[in-house]
C-alpha cells in the first residue's frame, strides 16, 4: 500500500491515500462524528456531520469547511478537526437534527447503544433552543422482526442505501420531501428482504429496532455478552449473543472482515429465539419423565456398563461434542448423523477442495471476485450472506470504469452514476429461479443432471483436455462458451456450488470448471456451500454415514445407541429410523429441542445450545471458529461433550479422563485427528489470557438481581473453559480478536464501536480476524479431471423428479422454532410448472395428491413457470416431509383419484 502524509491539526500522519479523510481519521483513532457514511456503503455527503477545516498550505490561516467523507486523503492535505469554527459547525448540525428528534431516549430501544446519542455527546451539543412543535409520522407495521418508529429519523439515507442499493431490496424507500421525508414501505407489511434485520444496525437512531428483542427487552449495557457463531447455515457468520436474567435476549453482528463483515441475514439474527422455545429441553428425561441429574447419570452409567455402544453424531453439533461421542463409542462405532448421499456429497466437496488446485475463498474474497458462476444453488435461501456478498461482486468489474475516471471507490453516488446499471459477469444455473437472478448476466434453469452437463461443458470450453459433453444442444454449447470466456477473462473468477441439488455431477462439474481455470493459469477459487453449521467439521472426522449405523445394528449385537443433537427422523425415512431404533435396547439422546427422536428415547439429556456452551464449528470455507458460552444456565443444561465426559468417567471409562475442560479437549482432538491439528489455535487457551468480562462496566443490578433468592451476593459462576468471565471485571491487557465479547469503546456505545477494534476501518480486526483455516489445496497435483458426465435428463411420463426448494425461513431446523421467524414460514406446498399442471388437473392454490415412495400426501399447489419440465419442487426441511431424502421420482394425481400401479396418466 502506498502511504500519503497528511497533516491533522498540524501533526503529520501517514494514511492510505486511496481513502477519504473521514476513513483515515477514524482509522487513526480520532473521534470524528458522522452519520451518512458507512464503511460498507461509502460516502454520499448527505448529513454534513463529518465537517473538518481544510487549508491550502501552511500559510493559509483561513481554510474552508469541507466534508471529511467527501474529500480524498491526498498527499499533503492539511486539515483541522479541532478548529473552533468547525467544532461549532458540527455542533450546529446536531442541533439542527435535534429540532425534530423526539425527547424519548429513556423509552427508545436504541438508547444506550445509539450512534446519534454518541455523536451528540461527541459534538458537545447539549441545549435545545427550539421550542416549537416537532414533525411527527405514522409508523408502519413491518413484520415480526423489525420495528418502525419514524419520528426518530435524522434523514441520513443509510437505510434506503443499504436496503436497496446494497442488498437489492425493493420494498423500502424514501417518500415525500423536506421536513416530512419518510422512510418505509408504500404500505404496512412484512419487509421482504432476507437482510432486513441489518436495518437495526445500519440505522444510526431508533427508527429501526429489533422487534424480537422488544418481547424481552434489555439495554445493551445490561446484557452479558460473548462471542459466538451463527448456527443456522454453513457460513459461520460471527455473532455477539446477549443474555440477561438467564435468558438469551438477542443476537447482533460481530464483525469479522473475512466472514460476515458488517452484516447478518435475518435467519441468523432472529433465529436465536429457538433457545427459549417452548420445546426446549432443560432437564433430563428418563423414560419420558423428568428426572434429576443424578438419576440421569446413574441410568446412563448403568447402560454404558453393558458395553456395545454406538454413537451417531451431528453436523449441527460442535467438533468437541462430536469428538466426545466418538471417544465414548470408539472411532469404529461412531457414525456421522447424515444421510448417505449427503455424506458422500460433502466428502466429495472436501476432497475436491483438498486435492485440486482451486482454493476455497473467504466470504470477503467472494465479494471481490469479478466473474462468478453459481451452479445449482439458491444462495439467498441456503447461504444468505454469500448471496449478499455476490451482490457486491457484480460491481467489481464495472468499478474499473469509475477507476478509469479517477473516481475513488468510496465516492458512492459518483461511482453509481458512472456505472449506471452495468454489472459484472454473474451466471446462475439452478433448478429454479433464485432471488439473485435479477443481477445475473444470464440464467439457466434445468434439472440437476442438465446443470451438471452445462458445468462440464464450461470446463471443456476453458480447457479442451477436460472431457467433452456429448450431445449438448447448440444453445447450451453457446452458453457454455460465453460463461467460459467470462471466467477466463476475469482476474478473480469464482465458481460456487454445493449439495443443495443433492447431485454429485453438479459438485464435480463445479470442481472441474475451477480446475480447468487453474490449469490455464487463472487464479480461480471454488466455494461450496454446506448444509449445516458444522457439516464441514463432521466430514473432516470421516465417520461413516447413517446407513452404516443401521448395518452395524443388524450385524452385531448393539445394546445402546447415543444420538448427539440430531433428529434422525429428518435424516432418513421414518421406517429406516424406526428399524434402527428397534435394533437397540437403549436409546440415549442429547439435544436442545424436543423432536421425534427425543420422544423415542429412554434417556434425554439437556444439551446446551450455542448460548450455553463452548465449542468449535467449521464453516464452508474450512475455517474453524469458536463460540463461547453466553449464559450460565441455572438448570441442568450443559455442553454435550461435558455430559459425555462426565458419564464416561462415572462409568469407569479411562479414555476420557485425560480431559476436563475445553483446552484439554481441543488439545486431545488435535493430537488424535490430523485434520484438526490447528484446533487449539482457533482461540487462545484460558491460561494465555487474563480475565475478560462478559458484562459491560455499566452492567446494573449485579448485587440485586438475585436478591429474591438470597440477599448475599453470590460468587459469580466460574468458567473453566475460557478466559471470559461471568463478571464486570476484566484483567489488564488487550483482548484477542476471537474473544471480544462485545464492541464498546469510551464514547462509542453503538455497534459502530467496532471502528476502535479494526486495524484499518473496514479491514481486519486488530491481531487478525478470528478463525483458522483447516484445509488448503494440496501442493502436489494429485487431481484428475472427472469423466463421469451424466446423460441429459429425460422426463418420465407420469412421474416428476422431486427436488428441494429452499426457504430462508423454514428449511433450517432450529430457526423454525424461533418465535418471530415461526410467523413467516411457508405452508407446505408442491411446486409445478404451469404447463404441466394441467396434465394432472392442477390449479394454483388448489390441492393435489402426491405419492412419494409408499407414502401419500395431499398438498397445496404452487405454480412456478421457472421449474423445468418433469421436475416438481417441495419445500426443503419442512415437516411433514423433512425425512424424505430428495431428489426422487414421485407420482401426482388430482384429489379424489387413486394411484394406479403405473402412475395415473
Amino acid at each position, binding site marked *: 500500500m502506498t502511504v500519503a502524509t497528511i497533516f491533522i491539526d498540524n501533526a503529520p500522519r501517514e494514511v492510505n491515500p486511496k481513502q477519504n479523510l473521514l476513513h483515515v481519521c477514524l482509522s487513526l483513532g480520532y473521534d470524528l462524528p458522522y452519520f451518512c457514511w458507512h464503511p460498507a456503503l461509502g460516502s454520499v455527503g448527505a448529513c454534513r456531520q463529518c465537517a473538518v477545516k481544510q487549508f491550502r498550505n501552511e500559510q493559509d490561516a483561513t481554510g474552508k469547511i469541507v466534508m471529511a467523507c467527501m474529500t480524498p486523503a491526498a498527499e499533503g492535505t492539511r486539515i483541522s478537526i479541532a478548529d473552533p469554527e468547525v467544532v461549532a459547525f458540527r455542533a450546529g448540525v446536531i442541533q439542527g437534527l435535534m429540532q425534530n428528534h423526539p425527547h424519548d431516549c429513556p423509552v427508545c430501544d436504541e438508547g444506550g447503544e445509539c450512534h446519534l446519542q454518541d455523536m451528540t455527546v461527541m459534538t458537545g451539543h447539549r441545549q435545545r433552543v427550539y421550542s416549537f412543535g416537532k414533525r411527527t409520522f405514522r409508523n408502519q407495521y413491518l413484520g415480526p422482526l423489525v420495528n418502525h418508529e419514524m419520528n426518530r429519523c435524522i434523514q441520513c439515507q443509510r437505510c434506503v442505501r443499504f436496503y436497496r442499493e446494497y442488498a437489492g431490496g*425493493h*420494498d423500502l*424507500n424514501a*417518500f*415525500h*420531501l423536506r421536513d416530512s421525508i419518510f422512510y418505509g414501505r408504500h404500505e404496512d407489511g412484512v419487509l421482504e428482504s432476507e437482510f432486513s434485520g441489518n436495518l437495526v444496525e445500519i440505522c444510526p437512531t431508533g427508527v429501526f429496532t429489533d422487534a424480537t428483542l422488544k418481547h424481552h427487552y434489555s439495554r445493551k449495557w445490561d446484557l452479558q455478552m460473548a462471542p459466538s457463531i451463527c448456527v443456522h447455515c454453513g457460513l459461520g457468520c460471527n455473532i455477539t449473543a446477549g443474555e440477561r436474567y438467564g435468558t438469551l435476549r438477542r443476537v447482533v453482528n460481530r464483525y469479522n472482515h473475512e466472514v460476515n463483515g458488517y452484516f447478518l441475514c435475518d435467519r441468523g439474527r432472529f433465529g436465536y429465539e429457538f433457545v427459549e422455545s417452548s420445546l426446549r429441553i432443560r432437564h433430563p428425561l428418563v423414560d419420558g419423565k423428568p428426572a434429576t441429574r443424578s438419576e440421569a447419570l446413574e441410568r446412563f452409567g448403568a447402560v454404558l456398563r453393558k458395553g456395545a455402544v454406538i454413537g451417531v453424531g451431528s453436523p449441527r453439533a460442535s467438533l468437541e461434542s462430536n469428538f466426545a461421542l466418538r471417544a465414548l463409542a470408539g472411532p469404529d462405532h461412531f457414525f456421522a448423523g447424515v444421510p448417505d448421499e449427503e455424506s458422500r456429497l460433502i466428502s466429495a466437496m472436501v476432497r475436491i477442495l483438498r486435492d485440486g488446485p482451486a482454493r476455497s475463498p473467504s466470504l470477503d474474497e467472494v465479494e471481490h471476485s469479478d466473474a462468478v458462476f453459481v451452479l445449482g444453488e439458491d444462495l439467498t435461501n441456503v447461504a444468505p450472506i454469500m448471496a449478499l456478498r455476490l451482490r457486491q461482486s457484480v460491481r467489481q468489474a464495472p468499478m474499473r470504469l469509475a477507476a478509469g475516471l479517477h473516481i475513488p471507490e468510496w465516492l458512492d453516488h459518483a461511482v453509481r452514476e458512472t456505472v*449506471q446499471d452495468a454489472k459484472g459477469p454473474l451466471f446462475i444455473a439452478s433448478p429454479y429461479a433464485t432471488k439473485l437472478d435479477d443481477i445475473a448476466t444470464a440464467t439457466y434453469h434445468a434439472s440437476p443432471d442438465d446443470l451438471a452437463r452445462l458445468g462440464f461443458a464450461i470446463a471443456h470450453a476453458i480447457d479442451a483436455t477436460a472431457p467433452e459433453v456429448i450431445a449438448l444442444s447448440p444453445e447450451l454449447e453457446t452458453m457454455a462458451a460465453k460463461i467460459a470466456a467470462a471466467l477466463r477473462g476475469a482476474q478473480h473468477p469464482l465458481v460456487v456450488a454445493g449439495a443443495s441439488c443433492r447431485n454429485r455431477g453438479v459438485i464435480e462439474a463445479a470442481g472441474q470448471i475451477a480446475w480447468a481455470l487453474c490449469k490455464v493459469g487463472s487464479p480461480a477459487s471454488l466455494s461450496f456451500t454446506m448444509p449445516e453449521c458444522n457439516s464441514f467439521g463432521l466430514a473432516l472426522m470421516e465417520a461413516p454415514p447413517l446407513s452404516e449405523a443401521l448395518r452395524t445394528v443388524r450385524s452385531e449385537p448393539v445394546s445402546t445407541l447415543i444420538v448427539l443433537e440430531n433428529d434422525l427422523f429428518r435424516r432418513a425415512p421414518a421406517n429406516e429410523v424406526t428399524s434402527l431404533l428397534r435394533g437397540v435396547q437403549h436409546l440415549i439422546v442429547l439435544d436442545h429441542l424436543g423432536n421425534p427422536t427425543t420422544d423415542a428415547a429412554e434417556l434425554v439429556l439437556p444439551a446446551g445450545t450455542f448460548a450455553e456452551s463452548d465449542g468449535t464449528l467449521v464453516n464452508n470455507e474450512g475455517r474453524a471458529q469458536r463460540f463461547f458460552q453466553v449464559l450460565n444456565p441455572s438448570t441442568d443444561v450443559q455442553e454435550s461433550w461435558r455430559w459425555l465426559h462426565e458419564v464416561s468417567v462415572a462409568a469407569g471409562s479411562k479414555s476420557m479422563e485425560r480431559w476436563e475442560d475445553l483446552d484439554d479437549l481441543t488439545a486431545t482432538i488435535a493430537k488424535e485427528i490430523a485434520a484438526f491439528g490447528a484446533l487449539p489455535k482457533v482461540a487462545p487457551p484460558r491460561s494465555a489470557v487474563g480475565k475478560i468480562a462478559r458484562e459491560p462496566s455499566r452492567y446494573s443490578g449485579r448485587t440485586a438481581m438475585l436478591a429474591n433468592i438470597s440477599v448475599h451476593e453470590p460468587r459469580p459462576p466460574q468458567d473453566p473453559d475460557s478466559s471470559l468471565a461471568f463478571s464486570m471485571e476484566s484483567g489488564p491487557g488487550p483482548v484477542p480478536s476471537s474473544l471480544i465479547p462485545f464492541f464498546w469503546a469510551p464514547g462509542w456505545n453503538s455497534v459502530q464501536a467496532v471502528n476502535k477494534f479494526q486495524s484499518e476501518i473496514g479491514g481486519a480486526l486488530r491481531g487478525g480476524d478470528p478463525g483458522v483455516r483447516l484445509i488448503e489445496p494440496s501442493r502436489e497435483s494429485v487431481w484428475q479431471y472427472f469423466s463421469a458426465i451424466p446423460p441429459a435428463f429425460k422426463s418420465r411420463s407420469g412421474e416428476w423428479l422431486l427436488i428441494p426448494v429452499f426457504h430462508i425461513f423454514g428449511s433450517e431446523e432450529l430457526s423454525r422454532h424461533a418465535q418471530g421467524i415461526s410467523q413467516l414460514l411457508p405452508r407446505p406446498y408442491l411446486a409445478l410448472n404451469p404447463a404441466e399442471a394441467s396434465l394432472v388437473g392442477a390449479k394454483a392454490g388448489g390441492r393435489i395428491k402426491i405419492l412419494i415412495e409408499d407414502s401419500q400426501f395431499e398438498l397445496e399447489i404452487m405454480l412456478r413457470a421457472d421449474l423445468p419440465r418433469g421436475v416438481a419442487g417441495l419445500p426443503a426441511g419442512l415437516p411433514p416431509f423433512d425425512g424424505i431424502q430428495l431428489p426422487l421420482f414421485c407420482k401426482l394425481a388430482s384429489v379424489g383419484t387413486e394411484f394406479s400401479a403405473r402412475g395415473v396418466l
Partner: protein
Amino acid sequence: MSAVTNTIFSPELAARFDKLVTLYPVKRSALIPMLLYAQDEVGYVSDAVVHEIAQRLDLFELDVRNVLSYYSMLRTKPAGKYNVQVCTNISCMLRGGYEILDHCKAKLGIGHKEVTADKLFSLEEVECIGACCWAPAMQVNYDFHEDLTPAKVDQILDDYAAGRGKDVK
C-alpha cells in the same frame, strides 16, 4: 410497442406514452413527464394511474410513489376544475402575496389544498412560480395572472366561475 394494455388513458395519451418510453436510455426516465401528463388528463394521480405507469415502466408501484410523493405539484386527490395556486414566496410575499391568498380563502370559502363543494375551484399556496417580476402572482391551471390586487382576483375568479376564463391545460 408497450405490452401494457391501456386501461385508463385516452388513445392519444397512450400513444404519447408509448413514444416517451423510447426516448431515454432507460425507460424509468419517462416517469416524471408521464405522471404530469396523466395528472393533466385524469385530474390527479390516482391509484390506477400509479399502477399502470409502474407497468409501463417496469417499476414497482413503490418506486412510482417514491417519486410522486416528492413533487408537490403532483397530487393524489382530485383538484377543482380550476386549481388556483397563489404564490407566497419572497417576491410575492413582499408585494402582498399573503393578502391575495387570504382573499382567495375568504372568497372561495376553502383553505390550502381544499376544493369547493361544487368542485369548481381548488386552492393551493405554492412556492415561487417564476413570475417574480410581476409579483404578486398566481396560476390557475397553467394560466398566469400577475400584479394582483384583491379586486383583480375577484374579477378573475368571477370570469372562471362564469366560464369566461382561459382554461389552459
